[in-house]
């Protein structure tokens, strides 16, 4: 990755002392503070149950934090409502760990949803869907009901839906859990491509093959707390 920009890029994600408690007494996150720049690729790692998914849920405003402040490109996301919140969410693509695919719709329909909500032209949607499916080795699944796909395939469909609308921020939860090395490589290539064209990317994973040699920053969570942030070039 090259960081040739003259002025320092703006901040995409700003979290200050964020905690998340699930009743009655599960501390999923405790005093986590991070700042992710626009255009950065950022890894969140940690053992199962460390709080990675919870962190992504907070960033995408699926859940409110119990404490602390979260700003997405300057907007306090948990105070947004209605139209503004919807518009912001259109700019955030999320590949959920549990996929959240509509099992009775085809692959193409599932991917199209994220573009339909911002009223993209049907012809543009069709082209984009074909393009993404080709890049993820899923061309022959275009009209398959997603309920009939393998988990690895479903995972890629979820990713395709997350990036289809060209969001400015992409959150990916465990993108390669069910994939072989070659397909993992393909997925990472696609994400890198999105990152090169300007998208901020946050990847939660415990697959060390995808972050072992990365030049990007890696945050490790342990039991809901920031254990370490390593890598990057010091921005």
């Amino acid at each position, binding site marked *: 990755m090259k960081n040739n920009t003259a002025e320092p890029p703006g901040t995409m994600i700003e979290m200050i002392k964020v905690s998340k408690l699930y009743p009655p007494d599960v501390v999923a996150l405790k005093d986590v503070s991070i700042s992710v720049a626009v255009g950065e690729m950022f890894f969140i790692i940690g053992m199962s149950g460390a709080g990675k998914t919870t962190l992504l849920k907070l960033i*995408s405003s*699926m859940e409110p934090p119990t404490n602390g402040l979260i700003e997405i490109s300057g907007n306090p996301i948990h105070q947004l*409502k*209605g*139209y503004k*919140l*919807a*518009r*912001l*969410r*259109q*700019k*955030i693509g*999320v590949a959920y760990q549990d996929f*959240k695919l*509509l099992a009775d719709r085809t692959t193409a329909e599932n991917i199209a*949803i*994220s573009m*339909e*909500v*911002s*009223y*993209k*032209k*049907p012809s543009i949607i069709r082209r984009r869907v074909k393009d993404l499916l080709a890049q993820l080795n899923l061309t022959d699944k275009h009209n398959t009901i997603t309920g009939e796909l393998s988990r690895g395939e479903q995972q890629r469909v979820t990713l395709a*839906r997350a990036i289809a*609308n060209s969001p400015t921020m992409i959150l990916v939860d465990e993108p390669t859990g069910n994939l072989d090395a070659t397909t993992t490589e393909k997925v990472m290539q696609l994400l890198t491509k999105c990152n090169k064209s300007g998208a901020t990317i946050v990847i939660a994973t415990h697959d060390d093959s995808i972050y072992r040699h990365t030049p990007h920053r890696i945050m490790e969570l342990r039991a809901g707390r920031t254990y370490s942030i390593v890598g990057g070039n010091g921005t």
Partner: protein
Amino acid sequence: MSFWVTVIRQVGRNLRQTWGSQLMTLLTVSLSVLIFAFFYLIYTNMLSLGDKLGDDLTLIVYLEEEPGPELQQQLIKKITTFDEVEDIRFVSSAMAYERFAGQLGQNEDVLDDMPKDFLPPSIEVIPFKNLRSLNQVKLFSAYLAKLPGTLKVQYGQEWVERFYYFTKLLSIVVLLSGTLLILTTIFMVAYTIRLTILGRQAELELLKLVGATNNYIRIPFLLEGLLQGILGSSIGIAALYTLFHWIRIRFSGPGLLNLFEFSFFPPVVTITIIGVSILLCTLGSYSTMHKFLRI
């Protein structure tokens, strides 16, 4: 452009998914429109019939003796103190005899043995239109009966009263069926849309997550209500019109129904009924959405 393409596709999806209950709702809406419009049609026709019959409403005051010109003036004064009337005509015994003879035509000779003044003299009072509600007519006739020298007052009490109660009853039926229409349309539409919403909870959740606006989610449901309203009321009205025509053809020619011209709603009323139904259905879908769909 792509906005409407997307919305219409959503609506199509909804309809496909819950077509069974959609059909039920449509049927219910049409049926309640039909029932309401049916009674309302009878009611309006009854009213215009009443108007027509009322045109001939005359109170006849039979007198003991032929009133002289002076007494006539006095009587006119007394009558008009109760209320203004359209016309007051004095009919002497002789005139009554002549009229009766005229009505008998060829059988006039049966009167040969009768004295020329066997019919009592009378006053024909034609009240103004606004006086023609039953209550007023009753009061008026009671008043006239108390005039000096009055034998009795006649105005076809029987049918006026019956007619009056009949239209009263009809107006209640119209009100009831109108209420039925309002309730069924609002609740049935609200219910089917709730069914759709519950059946697609997962999808609606996801839509919100990927950034669907309230409008994106709601407009298809509103449109669905609108569609139910348009189709339901049109079918209801069309069914009534067909029924109306069928009856007209069946009972054309000399017969009871030919006594008066039975007519269908003017276009304005038809459009109003359809418009109100559409409004009600949209209201039904709106109320559900307000409860179940919110970001």
